């Protein structure tokens, strides 16, 4: 059990922007140094690291150990599955601290999408991507090597997370009887609410850009039913946090943020974007994972003051409201239309603006925002926030508390 035995004692981030001059390596260094400074620990004393595994995280722990002059890591680990690593990296780091394998663990995520590998452009990564050639030869074919069933998807033009989640959103609407208009209202409410949060967040990429219904609806259709503002940003940036034991945390700072629980989960085809989920496609998330998350934390949904849901698309917070038990299955859209997800709603969601409007950091910026909420330092502070949930749509999540 992790409950209150470990804590996040430092957070750090770079500027988030569409394109930064720094490399991912430089961004990771900046974020890690900021997190260590915030925690009041000497970076040389860091003895553990946890990160997203390849192909997601471009900066290895070896690169950071070298560049930061860290004496020795006694433990380091990686978690796969992109955004579904967000709870896993907390879980791994917390378990290592609990087991005494490391005392000061840094978790980080750096992205430099401006320099290649844009998630929304399949031709900036993978087959036919940069370096593959053939872009100007209409007779050439691009061969998709078989890996994780991509050879069954790419030939049909199914290549991006946005397209995949459009399939989920369409199924959601059909199964739950939403009209096209109700689906637009639901997704638009989420996107517009998150933009308003971002407008008050000085770190958000979209802080100056208002989004009203007229502008939302004017956004071009990308992959129906998802339009431009239903999709996340692409950007450069990095963030990091420091995890240590609860005992050490109280010596380091006045405002440790305790880890109550953290989950990872895997069942057949329930890895992220597992389109071949047996049974109901909408049950990407194994329900047992949410039960575990709350049971191990010792709290219920009613205790959660604020949630930061992984949002590569606006559909994901909608379904997460159901998966994590804040609304009954199939009723999340009614909940959103009735209560919204804004500052005055029962559960403010993505108070930093989320991936749609703050920046895309693969869920890690959601963890940083949860820490700010629990410290009482968020730009969109939820009054007396004591417990926060950060969760991805397929069940990797963490519950944090002050």
């Amino acid at each position, binding site marked *: 059990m992790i409950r209150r035995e470990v804590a996040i004692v430092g957070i750090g981030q770079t500027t988030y922007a569409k394109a930064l001059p720094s490399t991912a390596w430089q961004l990771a260094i900046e974020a890690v140094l900021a997190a260590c400074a915030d925690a009041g620990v000497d970076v040389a004393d860091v003895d553990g690291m946890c990160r997203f595994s390849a192909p997601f995280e471009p900066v290895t722990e070896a690169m950071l150990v070298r560049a930061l002059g860290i004496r020795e890591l006694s433990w380091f680990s990686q978690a796969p599955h992109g955004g579904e690593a967000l709870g896993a990296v907390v879980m791994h780091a917390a378990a290592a601290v609990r087991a005494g394998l490391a005392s000061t663990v840094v978790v980080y995520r750096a992205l430099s999408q401006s320099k290649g590998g844009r998630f929304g452009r399949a031709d900036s990564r993978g087959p036919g991507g940069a370096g593959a050639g053939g872009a100007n030869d209409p007779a050439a074919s691009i061969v998709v090597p078989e890996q994780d069933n991509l050879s069954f*998807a*790419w030939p049909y033009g199914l290549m991006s997370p946005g397209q995949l989640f459009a399939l989920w959103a369409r199924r959601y609407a059909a199964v739950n009887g939403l009209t096209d208009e109700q689906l637009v209202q639901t997704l638009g409410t989420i996107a517009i609410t998150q933009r308003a949060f971002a407008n008050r967040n000085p770190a958000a990429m979209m802080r100056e850009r208002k989004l009203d219904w007229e502008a939302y609806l004017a956004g071009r259709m990308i992959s129906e039913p998802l339009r431009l503002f239903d999709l996340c940003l692409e950007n450069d940036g990095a963030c990091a946090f420091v995890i240590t034991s609860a005992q050490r945390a109280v010596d380091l700072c006045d405002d440790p943020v305790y880890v109550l629980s953290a989950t990872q989960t895997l069942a057949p085809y329930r890895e992220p974007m597992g389109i*071949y989920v047996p049974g109901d496609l909408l049950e990407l998330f194994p329900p047992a994972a949410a039960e575990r998350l709350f049971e191990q934390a010792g709290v219920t949904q009613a205790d959660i003051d604020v949630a930061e849901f992984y949002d590569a698309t606006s559909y994901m917070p909608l379904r997460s409201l159901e998966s994590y038990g804040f609304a009954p299955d199939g009723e999340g859209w009614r909940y959103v239309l009735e209560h919204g997800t804004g500052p005055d709603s029962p559960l403010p969601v993505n108070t930093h603006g989320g991936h749609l409007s703050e920046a895309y950091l693969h869920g890690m910026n959601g963890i940083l925002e949860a820490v700010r909420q629990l410290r009482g330092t968020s730009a969109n502070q939820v009054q007396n926030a004591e417990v926060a949930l950060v969760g991805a749509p397929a069940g990797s999540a963490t519950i944090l508390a002050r």
Partner: protein
Amino acid sequence: MAVIPGSTELTAPYWEAAREGRLVVQQCQSCRQVWHPPLPSCPHCHSASLGWHGTTGAGTVYTYTIVRHPTHFAFAGKIPYVIALVELAEGPRLVTGITGCAPEDIRVGLPVRVVFREVADGVTLPYFEPSNG
């Protein structure tokens, strides 16, 4: 420009069948269960004795999206195009495209049947079109 499937020893029979105008799914020779995409052993009884089951090619649209903004230059000239998840009468679902009707006429639950499209020399992909009841 076509984007075509590479194959492995495991997946090659699927594409060879498509080239011959047949839509097949993997089948366990012990417990007779069928599934897609291919696996090296039966997920139900763990038998390694596997074969290929010829489907009727009939199914329904489980979900779909109309892509209006390409994410790869190879599809830039093809928008709008439809990606669908089709549930075969035999049970398994597969990622495919819908042809033979206006994208706006597609609905979840629409009955469809397989058609075969040669997208490059010697490369055939199963697509689906409305089966008109």
